[in-house]
């Protein structure tokens, strides 16, 4: 009934010439008669994804080959510490990875996908002494790296396109991607986000503060958790008996950023129509007038007009403001509703900013070099990303009674982060260059009481995004047919000068906006370009966020982007059903898919090898080969046999786990 059938017959036709005898060429079988022509028309892959990708889908900061010796030396220093730990605890390291398994792992970890057949074969054939270092460097400067690490940060920063109806977050999402693309030093990046002022399309870094708009206490809680690996949230309500932090300390810290404002003149008395009426800028007054006029019109997109106006006046600014203790403050050291003086949790505010406003002080303190917890948190986070287990687990709960499994190693990695001036990509480059990273994976039971000693990286399931992008690698030659809008694009569409705008201008602006970023039109446009049976065949990083619960990515555990690091890799039945019967696993059987072309462009006798290299990134063993041949020979028709082989490999644990 399908193109896949047609293809399978052809392919297997050829496979079978070699594997079996000419007798197998009865390839037609039952299925051949069933109008493949009609089916081809129904189920073709969209043209945009079968074309060659753009030469530079994303222009990435190149990796400096000159620092390779320094990277190697730094990797050796890490290895020495890991090996010492192994020796002390009598744990045997696992054996070094072969080239094929190494390639699969670094592709998945740095590029977020499996290698294509051709990429893998080129790497395996190379006899250059530094071919692993070269592969690492090439991947770190690839568009795939930006896409993959964008996914990594999207999970941490809870990146959504509309965290609230009036928050048009596309510019912020673009900013995050861009910070990865340019490899912006991490301390600079974080400081920008914690201190940015303005509207989203003027200064998109404001998105971080707007993510918790109107919730100043959760904002501080989340910020400390993400960047300083410390949980103070319980102290928001009361002193927790088992926790270090008091409610007073929480409020003292929150007092630093309490003056962050996101609306002109502050929030109104509680009614939407009064919200933007509060005294404020000229623009805000204009917005109020427009909104009031709009209310009288009784038009059907009244709410949309209101949100559009609100988006235009949403503006982050700061003016110091006192924070009062809650009215139910129950401890003896202060009275309820008294103002707290701002104070950081530990250490001191850096000298240079002591006269600056509270928000500047807070940001400077968070990212300061002598606030080692900042460097330690990100070092531990990246170590966990690559090695599967953090030195402190969970990585957002550093405290005295949750010590690092190897404190020396963690402090060394922290030193490295500081030495590298928060160059995250260089840090990643060092870790993946270590021997320990290039060893075979081991099982780690997260429920085991024994600390993990890193005899090799821990076995883990691909993230939802790695799985999606890997399957896409087997399907789409061009996974970049659609990319996220840029800040400039959004600005051109969103921006209205409210002081001079008429209602008609607002209507036109809104129409433009909905036409581009409204859910329906955006989806339709994507489907037109790269849609295949209800799915958009583009990289996970370019898909809408959050995706609906039933999407393949959500089934496999992608975060709803509501909770920090909400992604999961737990097994569920709907995942298996999607692998069995869902459209994405069948897309690769279509004519014009990557694996189709890879198989058909090789000699027939190589077909089984090509399938293995493309799907599992290795050649079949003798037993595998025997089973594959047997399957193809004994299937109803030979076409089916080959389809079965590809399907079967996709449904192995070997495919979805990273060894």
């Amino acid at each position, binding site marked *: 009934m399908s193109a896949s059938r047609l293809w399978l017959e052809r392919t297997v036709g050829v496979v079978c010439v070699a594997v079996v005898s000419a007798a197998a060429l009865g390839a037609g079988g039952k299925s051949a008669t069933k109008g493949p022509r009609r089916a081809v028309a129904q189920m073709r892959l969209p043209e945009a994804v079968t074309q060659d990708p753009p030469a530079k889908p994303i222009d990435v900061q190149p990796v400096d080959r000159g620092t390779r010796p320094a990277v190697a030396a730094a990797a050796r220093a890490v290895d020495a510490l890991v090996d010492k730990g192994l020796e002390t605890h009598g744990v045997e390291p696992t054996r070094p990875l072969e080239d094929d398994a190494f390639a699969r792992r670094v592709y998945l970890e740095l590029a977020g996908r499996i290698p294509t057949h051709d990429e893998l074969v080129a790497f395996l054939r190379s006899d250059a002494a530094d071919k692993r270092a070269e592969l690492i460097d090439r991947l770190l400067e690839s568009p795939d790296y930006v896409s993959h690490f964008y996914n990594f940060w999207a999970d941490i920063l809870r990146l959504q396109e509309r965290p609230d109806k009036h928050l048009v977050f596309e510019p912020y999402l673009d900013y995050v991607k861009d910070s990865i693309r340019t490899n912006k030093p991490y301390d600079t990046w974080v400081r920008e986000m914690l201190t940015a002022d303005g509207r989203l399309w003027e200064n998109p870094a404001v998105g971080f503060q707007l993510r918790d708009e109107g919730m100043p206490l959760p904002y501080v809680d989340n910020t400390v958790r993400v960047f300083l690996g410390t949980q103070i949230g319980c102290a928001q309500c009361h002193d927790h008996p088992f926790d270090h932090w008091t409610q007073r300390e929480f409020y003292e810290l929150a007092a630093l950023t309490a003056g962050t404002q996101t609306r002109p003149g502050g929030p109104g008395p509680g009614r939407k129509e009064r919200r933007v009426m509060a005294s404020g800028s000229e623009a805000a007054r204009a917005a109020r007038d427009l909104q009031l006029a709009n209310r009288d019109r009784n038009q059907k997109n009244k709410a949309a007009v209101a949100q559009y106006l609100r988006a235009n006046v949403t503006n982050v600014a700061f003016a110091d403001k006192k924070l009062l203790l809650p009215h139910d403050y129950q401890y003896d050291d202060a009275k309820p509703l008294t103002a707290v003086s701002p104070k950081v949790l530990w250490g001191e505010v850096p000298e240079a900013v002591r006269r600056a406003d509270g928000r500047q002080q807070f940001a400077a303190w968070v990212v300061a070099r002598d606030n080692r917890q900042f460097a330690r948190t990100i070092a531990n986070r990246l170590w966990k990303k690559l090695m599967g287990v953090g030195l402190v687990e969970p990585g957002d709960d550093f405290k005295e009674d949750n010590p690092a499994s190897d404190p020396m190693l963690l402090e060394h990695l922290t030193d490295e982060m500081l030495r590298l001036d928060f160059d995250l990509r260089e840090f990643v480059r060092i870790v993946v260059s270590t021997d320990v990273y290039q060893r075979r994976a081991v099982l780690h039971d997260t429920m085991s009481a024994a600390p993990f000693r890193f005899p090799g990286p821990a076995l883990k399931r691909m993230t939802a995004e790695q799985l999606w992008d890997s399957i896409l690698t087997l399907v789409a030659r061009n996974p970049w047919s659609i990319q996220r809008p840029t800040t400039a694009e959004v600005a051109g569409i969103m921006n209205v000068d409210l002081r001079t705008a008429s209602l008609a201008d607002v209507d036109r602006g809104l129409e433009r906006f909905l036409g581009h970023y409204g859910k329906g039109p955006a989806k339709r446009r994507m489907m037109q370009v790269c849609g295949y049976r209800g799915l958009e065949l583009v990289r996970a990083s370019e898909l809408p966020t959050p995706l609906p619960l039933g999407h393949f990515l959500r*089934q496999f555990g992608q975060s709803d982007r509501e909770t920090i690091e909400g992604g999961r890799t737990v097994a569920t039945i709907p995942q298996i059903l999607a692998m*069995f019967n869902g459209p994405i696993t069948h897309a690769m059987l279509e004519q014009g898919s990557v694996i189709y072309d890879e198989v058909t462009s090789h000699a027939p006798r190589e077909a089984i090898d090509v399938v293995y290299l493309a799907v599992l990134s290795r050649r079949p063993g003798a037993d595998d080969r025997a089973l594959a041949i047997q399957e193809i020979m004994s299937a109803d028709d030979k076409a089916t046999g080959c389809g079965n082989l590809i399907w079967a*490999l996709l449904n192995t644990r070997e495919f979805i786990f990273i060894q």
Partner: protein
Amino acid sequence: MHRHHNGTFLDDRLARRAVFGRIARTTLGVTLLDGLSGPLAEAAAATNKGGVNLVILTMRGAMSHLDTFDPKPGREEQGETKPIQTKTPGVVFGEHLPRLAALSDRLAVIRSMTTETGDHQQGQYVMRTAYPVLGSIRHPSLGSWALHVQGKASRELPGYVLVGNGNEHPGAGFLDPAVTPVPVADPTLGLENTVRPQYLSEKNFNRRLALADKLDADFKRAFAGPQLEAYNQMYKDAVRLLGSVDLEAFDIAKESEKTRDRYGSSTFGQGCLLARRLVEAGVRCVEVEYGKWDMHREIFEELPETAGTLDQGMATLLADLEDRGLLSSTLVVLATEFGRTPRINENAGRDHHPAVFSCALAGAGVQGGMVYGASDERGFRPAADAVSVPDFLSTVAAACGLPHDKEFMAPNGRPFKIGGGGKPIRAVLA
């Protein structure tokens, strides 16, 4: 293992095996695993028609107690939500719950719930497991315990279905992966991808599975452990499910339009309808999430729709279960992670309030028409009979006939109880 004295394990032989299997796996390493897969699979397939069904309605984001089950008429804190009289004399609910007010004689409302944390994720975890989040272990959710102890009621259908987002859910915790909830993202779509592509015959499908098994044998052997075992188990369950004639229990389109309308067009309402169908078909536990309660802003604009959706879905579910004679064997739990502040903030919303909040129970094992405990006059703290989350979940366990006072051994060698060692509220139990 020295804690294995009398009574620390269930008498149920299969459940016991499952626990042993888990322990063996983590303490004796991987060699035992292959030998255990037989009995484990058997345990998963075992059925038990009796026992109490459990439907949990999880209000994510923290449901405001003052605006739902614990109004404070005449107080400034009450804001815009008016009280309405319920069927139970002297008991009022918030105005957005008229249908539940009319069914108050079926409800046991607890107004003195209290918890430790004001963090959503942690609060939800505690409400599902009775234990705080720990880095070193994942605790089983109550539904997984119920399934673990009572077994499945249907051979092919899953024992535990979650209508909502599986990511946040503790699931089976340290129990066998077989008691993991099956997430259904959208109740109107039910369980997706259950139909084979037309070109794929059943015979070929089975060939594919067998081939995958053989080709994967080396890898499975090399990395045998809980992670892979969970996937092995899901593959088995998925295949068993695909062969089930009861699959249409997942399809609410089989209901009349009139019935569907009675539950309301919301995802939550349709989820309640799906819950009813699944319980009827023999699914032991169904959890339906509803996540719009985190009302830091404009709470009185949000409440009519959100609370109204809860009211319609839950009230229709209770009525339907009763009509079908299922309410006496099904416990319906309305839970939320904490309450919301009595004080209305400057954005006209209410913030997180763990000190006191409300939950409710109805059906099997509990008394109707009762209010247990009370908050103080402002709705700020428990005034009488404070109920901790472990107390609440122990009450649920007791109502379901689960052994809440028995110790179970987790793989880290530490003892755990269903309901976290809380004290069941005798006054609420029937």
